[in-house]
């Protein structure tokens, strides 16, 4: 049964070969392989979760080499939850990408390699192994960003590659410093040997700094975020949804493990300035990210800068270094993944109806796609932190922990960021619901959609009772759109049924997760108890 934890990585990697091997025989191989891998991953993640909840933390020695020398995989409440998150997001994106594209065999191969890399980050208990998985994640992400048709996508991908590789290399250098001072790479073993070297040893402190900066590049904290808005804006919608949900999440999770499993809270007690610096970096990231998000007119860029702010908040929660704040950071990590993936799919789906991706294009879109718009609005308010959604639970614990730890700055920053988040989402939701569509709603989109939205827009301006008695609601005739998913979204006239399902599922998930936030807390509690004993 403990083999399931290794299979979480092995199954997607093996199935990633299937589209390449059999794609010539049958061109739907990729989608089927991705769906199978997603379902298998979900099954394995459930097995791991069930084992964790019945027996507690368990480990797996790769190749039967005993842990301090061999590579160790570890499953506890946090990694099991995040493994489940990976399965769910993978399945959602596979369902969404079938219609929205890029629906090619190469895309699904890349997606599965990315799934394997991220799963590896979540289950490994070895610092060098973590580097390898971070680089697998990175390589697959660069390839997926470049699946965007525009030449700008290739340029964004190269920019991401240059910055991301430097980040990962700095992480590797930091691991090297820890290795030459302690002689081990196993996380649990490092936690025992670092105190023997001394927390204030220059090698240990430099190693910590290099690792934190390297992972902060990958998690896109300000000012190391420069790759992220371009990469999110220029990649296809399904890729953006996937990487925004999981790639930065993997880096933030790695940061959590490094701070608590390797350096432990005793390091914070001995050298408080290390985490103080991280708190400042994260707080600046929250404020600057939110302000930059308010300034954007392109919705994908706005959501990208919003991620800079939200990851700042998550890392601030980790850096406050008490159990409540770290719990909040972890809840927000899971919640942000679901909400941001749903929001990006929502933008992609609504952009087809609205004819563009800017805030102004979205004017009056709620009348033309009521269900998707409602789900989008719910997700937006969930990310703002309106109870009972999961965004509230995460921020509440972070603020509570910050107050407990006497870090008033973090508490203030969290509240300010909530207001700024409201500012940039409110103007989108306001345009969606309370503005009429522009004079020529599908002005630059040629072809069939010109008729339907125009009549619908007229109906809406008559009294906003769109769809009650008239059956031209374009949200419902998704099944007749002859879209073969070649990535050219703007000429879709309605929201596809897959996209609608994914956005609604994300909205429901965000609210349900918020209602069960106390259960999530009790899942994370045993893990944190070990660190904060």
């Amino acid at each position, binding site marked *: 049964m403990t083999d399931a934890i290794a299979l979480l990585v092995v199954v997607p990697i093996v199935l990633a070969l299937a589209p390449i091997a059999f794609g010539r025989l049958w061109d739907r191989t990729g989608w089927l392989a991705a769906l199978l891998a997603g379902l298998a991953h979900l099954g394995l993640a459930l097995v791991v979760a069930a084992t964790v909840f019945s027996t507690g933390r368990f480990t797996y020695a790769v190749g039967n080499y005993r842990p301090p020398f061999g590579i160790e995989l570890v499953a506890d409440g946090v990694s099991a939850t995040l493994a489940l998150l990976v399965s769910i997001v993978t399945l959602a994106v596979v369902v969404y990408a079938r219609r929205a594209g890029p629906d090619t065999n190469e895309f699904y191969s890349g997606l599965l390699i990315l799934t394997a890399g991220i799963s590896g980050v979540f289950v490994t208990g070895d610092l*060098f192994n973590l*580097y*390898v998985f971070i*680089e697998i994640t*990175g*390589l697959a992400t*660069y*390839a997926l960003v*470049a699946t965007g048709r525009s*030449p*700008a996508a*290739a*340029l964004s*991908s*190269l920019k991401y*590659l*240059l910055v991301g*590789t*430097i980040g990962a*290399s700095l992480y*590797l*250098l930091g691991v*090297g410093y820890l*290795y*030459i001072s302690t*002689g081990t790479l196993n996380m649990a073993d490092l936690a025992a040997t670092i105190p023997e070297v001394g927390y204030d040893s220059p090698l240990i402190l430099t190693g910590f700094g290099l690792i934190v900066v390297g992972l902060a590049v990958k998690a896109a904290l300000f000012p190391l975020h420069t790759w992220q808005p371009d990469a999110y804006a220029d990649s296809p919608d399904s890729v953006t949804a996937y990487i925004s949900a999981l790639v930065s999440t993997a880096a933030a999770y790695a940061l959590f493990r490094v701070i608590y499993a390797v350096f432990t809270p005793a390091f914070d007690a001995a050298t408080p300035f290390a985490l103080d610096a991280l708190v400042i970096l994260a707080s600046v990231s929250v404020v600057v990210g939110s302000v930059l998000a308010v300034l954007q007119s392109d919705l994908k860029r706005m959501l990208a800068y919003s991620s800079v702010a939200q990851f700042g908040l998550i890392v601030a929660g980790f850096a406050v270094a008490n159990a409540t704040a770290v719990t909040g950071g972890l809840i927000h990590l899971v919640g942000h993944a679901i909400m941001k993936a749903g929001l990006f799919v929502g933008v992609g789906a609504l952009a087809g109806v609205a004819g563009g991706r800017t805030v102004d294009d979205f004017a009056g879109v709620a009348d033309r796609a009521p269900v998707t718009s409602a789900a989008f609005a719910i997700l937006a308010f969930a990310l703002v932190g309106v109870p009972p959604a999961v965004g509230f639970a995460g921020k509440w614990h972070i603020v509570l922990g910050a107050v407990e730890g006497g870090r008033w700055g973090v508490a203030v920053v969290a509240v300010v960021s909530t207001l700024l988040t409201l500012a940039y989402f409110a103007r989108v939701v306001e345009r969606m619901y309370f503005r009429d569509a522009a004079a020529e709603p599908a002005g630059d989109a040629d072809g069939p959609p010109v008729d339907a939205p125009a009549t619908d827009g007229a109906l809406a301006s008559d009294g906003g009772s769109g769809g009650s008695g008239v059956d031209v609601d374009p949200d419902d005739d998704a099944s007749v759109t002859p879209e073969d998913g070649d990535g050219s979204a703007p000429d879709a006239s309605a929201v596809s049924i897959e996209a609608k399902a994914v956005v609604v599922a994300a909205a429901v998930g965000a609210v349900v997760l918020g209602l069960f936030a106390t259960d999530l807390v009790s899942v994370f509690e045993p893990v944190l108890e070990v660190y904060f004993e």
Partner: protein
Amino acid sequence: MIDLLSTHYNYLVFVALVGIGLYGVTASSNLVKKIIGLNVFQVGIFLFFVTSGYVDGAAPPVVGHGSGPFASPLPHVLILTAIVVGVSLTAVALALVVRIYDAYGTLDEEAIREVQLND
């Protein structure tokens, strides 16, 4: 100072390579030169690992190959993995460069930015 140079020159080379590499990535506006800089930067880090595993006069840790001190093979094995990662990254980067050159007809970052602004 001279003492440091003669005993720790390998670490000084590591620092120099990392610095030259970072300078190459940031200062050059040519995308291929940026990738070369990235490679130099990574090689510096590889050198750090490999040189830290070197023990003067040590035997390989293989049964029947002399008696201690033994050199740990682990840093070298780690770097074999890291070299593979580096080669894959270079391959992906060069593939992207080919696509960028096809689209813009130049590899100069400034020139590409001008093309993008004109669009």
